[in-house]
C-alpha cells in the first residue's frame, strides 16, 4: 500500500469512527427508543416527547462532545508542535483550569445574565491569561521541566481560586459544583450551549489548522524557521489565540476535560508520522472520538452519582502521561 493510499484509509477510518460514536451517543440514554423512532424523532417526526429528547438533549450533547474533543485534540497537537514538547496539552499547561476560573467568576457573579456570550468570552480570557503567565514563567524556550512545573503551579492556583470563588458564591449549590468545573460533564447540555460554544470552537480550529507549515519549520528552531520565511511571533500568536478559542468556550459550557490534547497526538503519531502539520486535523477527529467514547462510558457505567467525563479521560490519559515522563527521563539519561 503506498503512503497516500494509507493516509486516505487512515483518514476515512477516523471519520468513520467519529460517525459511529456519534450515532451511538444519540442512541444511548435513560429512555430507550426504537431505532426507527430515534431517527424520526431526530428529524422532528413522531411523539413530541421523543423529538424533545433527541433534538434538545441528545443531539446537543453529541455535537458538543465532537466540538470540544476536536478543539482539545487539535490544540494539543499545535501546542506540542509550538512548544516542541511532547507533554504539552491544554489541561497540563493550565488552559482548561484558568478558562474554568474565568467562566466561574462570570457565571456565579450573575454577569452571565447580562449576555450569555459573556460566559465563553470570559473563559477565553482565562485561557489567554494562562498562556501569557506560562510564557512569563518559562520564557519562550523553557524545557520540559519548567513547562510541567509552571503548568502545575498555574493549575493549583487556578483550582484554588475557582474553589474560593465557588465558596463565596451566593448559591449553596456552588461548592458542590467545583467537581463539574474541574472534571467536566456533558449531561443535560442544551442547544443554547451548542450555539455559545461551537462557532467559537470552529473558528479556533480553522486558525490552528493553518499553522501546520510553520509548526513543521519550527522543528528546526526559531532561527531556521524565520530563515525559511516563517514568522515565529505571528505563529505563536495564532496558536495562542486559536487555543483560547478552541478550548475556552468548551470549558465554559462543559467544565475542564483533561488529557485529550495530550493523548490523541501521541496515539496518532505511530500511524501518521511525526510531522506536526500532518497531525493537526487527524488530532481533531481523534479528540472528537475520544470525548464521544468517554461520554458513552459515562452513561453506560452504572454509578450512584454521575461519573464525571474528566475522570474517564484522566483514567485514560494520566497513565499515558506518566509513561511519557518515564520515557523522556530514560532518554535524557541515555544521552547524558
Amino acid at each position, binding site marked *: 500500500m503506498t503512503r497516500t493510499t494509507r493516509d486516505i484509509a487512515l483518514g476515512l477510518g477516523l471519520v468513520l469512527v467519529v460517525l459511529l460514536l456519534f450515532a451511538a451517543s444519540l442512541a444511548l440514554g435513560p429512555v430507550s427508543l426504537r431505532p426507527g423512532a430515534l431517527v424520526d424523532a431526530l428529524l422532528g417526526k413522531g411523539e413530541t416527547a421523543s423529538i424533545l429528547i433527541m433534538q434538545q438533549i441528545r443531539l446537543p450533547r453529541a455535537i458538543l462532545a465532537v466540538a470540544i474533543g476536536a478543539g482539545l485534540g487539535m490544540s494539543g497537537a499545535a501546542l506540542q508542535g509550538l512548544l516542541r514538547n511532547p507533554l504539552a496539552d491544554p489541561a497540563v499547561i493550565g488552559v482548561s483550569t484558568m478558562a474554568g476560573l474565568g467562566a466561574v467568576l462570570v457565571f456565579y457573579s450573575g454577569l452571565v445574565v447580562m449576555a450569555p456570550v459573556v460566559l465563553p468570552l470570559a473563559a477565553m480570557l482565562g485561557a489567554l491569561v494562562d498562556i501569557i503567565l506560562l510564557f512569563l514563567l518559562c520564557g519562550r524556550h523553557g524545557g520540559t521541566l519548567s513547562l510541567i512545573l509552571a503548568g502545575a503551579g498555574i493549575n493549583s492556583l487556578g483550582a484554588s481560586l475557582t474553589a474560593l470563588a465557588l465558596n463565596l458564591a451566593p448559591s449553596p449549590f456552588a461548592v458542590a459544583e467545583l467537581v463539574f468545573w474541574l472534571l467536566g460533564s456533558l449531561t443535560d447540555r442544551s442547544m443554547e450551549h451548542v450555539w455559545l460554544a461551537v462557532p467559537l470552537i470552529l473558528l479556533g480550529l480553522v486558525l490552528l489548522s493553518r499553522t501546520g507549515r510553520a509548526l513543521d*519549520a519550527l*522543528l528546526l528552531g526559531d532561527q*531556521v524557521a524565520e530563515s525559511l*520565511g516563517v514568522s515565529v511571533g505571528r505563529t505563536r500568536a495564532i496558536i495562542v489565540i486559536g487555543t483560547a478559542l478552541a478550548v475556552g468556550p468548551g470549558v465554559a459550557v462543559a467544565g475542564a476535560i483533561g488529557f485529550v490534547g495530550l493523548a490523541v497526538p501521541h496515539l496518532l503519531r505511530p500511524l501518521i508520522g511525526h510531522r506536526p502539520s500532518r497531525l493537526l486535523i487527524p488530532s481533531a477527529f481523534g479528540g472528537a472520538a475520544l470525548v464521544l467514547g468517554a461520554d458513552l462510558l459515562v452513561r453506560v457505567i452504572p454509578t450512584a452519582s454521575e461519573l464525571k467525563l474528566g475522570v474517564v479521560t484522566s483514567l485514560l490519559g494520566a497513565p499515558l502521561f506518566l509513561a511519557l515522563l518515564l520515557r523522556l527521563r530514560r532518554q535524557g539519561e541515555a544521552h547524558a
Partner: protein
Amino acid sequence: MLEAIDIVARAGQALLLDEVSFRAAPGDIIGIVGPNGAGKSTLLRILAGLALPASGRVQLDGTTLSTLSRRERARKIAFLPQGGLAESAVTVRQIVALGRLPHGGRGHDAIAIDRALDAVGIVQLADRAMTSLSGGEQARTLLARALAVEAPYLLADEPTASLDPRHQIDLMECLRIRAAAGTSVIIILHDLSLAARYCRQLVLLARGRIAACGPPETLLEPALLESVYGIPFIASKIGVIPAVLPGTTP
C-alpha cells in the same frame, strides 16, 4: 552580491559590531573567523536578515534586505545556525524537505531533496528517524536541509563543529562544489587551517571590528593573529595544505 554596509549592532549598552562592511559575490567562499565574542554569529544573523542592525544596512543584489518580503528573502538566503533540533522522530527526508518551504509549491521538490541528500552523502539515511542518528549524522542532515533551499546565498555558523575529520572535509568539499556552481557561501569557522584551506577570502573579526579582510595568505600572519587572539601562532604549509596552529614555538 550580498553586501554589509557599515553594520552597527548593540545589545543594550554593549557594542557588538562597529561599522562592519564587506561583500560576498556569487561563487565566493568567505570564512568569518575570530575569537569568541567577536560578534561573528551576530554578524551572520544580520546578514541573513534575522536581526536588524542598529545602523547600517544589508543589500542583496542592490536591494535593501529589510525591504524584501519574507518569502523572497527565504528563497535567496539559506541559513544554518549552530545547535541541533528538538527531539523528534521525524525522518531525515522530512527534515531535508523543510528546506523547500520557501518555494511553496510541489514542483521540483523531490529532485532538490534528493540532490541535497546526495551532496551530503546521507542518501542511505533518508528514511531513518532523526532520534536514531548520531550527532554528526544529525548535523549533516541539517546541512542537507540548508542545501535543499538551493538559495544563491548560504550562510552557516560553525557547521563543522560536531563532525569528525573525514566529514569535516566532506562538508567543505561539498561547499566548494556549491560555490563552483555559483552559490555564495559565508561560513563561520573556528578551525583556522580549514578556513585557510577552503575559503577564498577571510574576514577576521575581533571585538566587533574587522581586524583584517582578504585572501588567507595575507590574513594568517602570526603577528596579526597573536594581536587578535592573544596567543602565539605558527603558520606553515604542509605541501599545499595550509596549517595554522596555536601555541608556542618549541
